[in-house]
């Protein structure tokens, strides 16, 4: 397990299951600050033996710089062949049903499981 943490958030990578868990509120000031998280996400693309899962259900808030960060990861995943990407999301957190559709337009095969 690798973890990146801040005042109000935690990002945890389960390398064995190609799953990244997000928790709290991500409102960092720009791409420079988001770089460590983006690097962690990209590390899952090296040799995925299973679908890559981003579990966002406990991510209560994401600013637009965070949307940009996820979009960069999604585009990179799209541009590699054979990558299956799945986002676990929830209707209970409004940004997820409002903004995740933008990412799906970048990568139509992106699976968004809204619970």
């Amino acid at each position, binding site marked *: 397990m690798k973890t990146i943490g801040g*005042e109000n958030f935690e990002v945890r990578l389960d390398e064995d299951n190609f799953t990244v868990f997000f928790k709290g509120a991500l*409102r960092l*000031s720009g791409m420079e600050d988001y770089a460590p998280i983006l690097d962690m996400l990209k590390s899952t693309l090296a040799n995925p033996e299973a679908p890559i899962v981003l579990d966002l259900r406990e991510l209560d808030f994401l*600013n637009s710089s965070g949307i*940009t960060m996820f979009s960069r990861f999604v585009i990179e995943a799209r541009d590699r062949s054979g990558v299956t990407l799945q986002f676990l999301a929830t209707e209970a957190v*409004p940004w997820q049903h409002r903004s995740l559709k933008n990412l799906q337009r970048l990568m139509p095969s992106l699976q968004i499981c809204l619970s």
Partner: protein
Amino acid sequence: MTPEQTFGHYSGAEKPCEYLTMVFSPLSVPLRSRWRNNGLSADFLGDYVTTFLPAGNGTAAAYIQTEIRHAVTYIANELLENAMKYHEHTADIPIGLHLELCADHITVSATNGVGPNQAERYRTFIENILNEGDVSQRIVQQLEDTAAGKDSSSSCLGLLTIMNDYGAELGWHFEQHATFQELMTVTTRAVLRLKMLTGVAA
């Protein structure tokens, strides 16, 4: 310099039912050190607004409260982040964040000072998005461009998502500053129609 200009959905002041204004002094400490204050302020506005929403214990009332609180928090956060990032630091002009609640809509606006070059860049961006027929397509293009390194700035994405993902109407007001006449104050205003946001009238 044109002394005053408006763009988009920017009507004159109307009598709000409730309002709240926060004023921040110009940046005396680096923005990075006070970045967290943007989130604290936005969270406060989102919580504050729920006091004036219809009370109720049902699922529908809870849904409306959650959606409106989140929308106000997201919009306030994006507008304040932009105001802080692009504020003209050389003059003693405060940064403002203003909330108005009316029967069928909520207005969130942020005001900051800008120099002539920044004002021009912002006006060009505004004219571009006002001429854009399909904002959702513009978002996708912007995300592609950013990923391809064609556009290093993601600042306009916030405004695009406010329009597209939250259905808010945006308007802008540029005004020559009374004291620092080489500078302007710019107000970015988002109007959230409650019916649009929740599917029901509040």
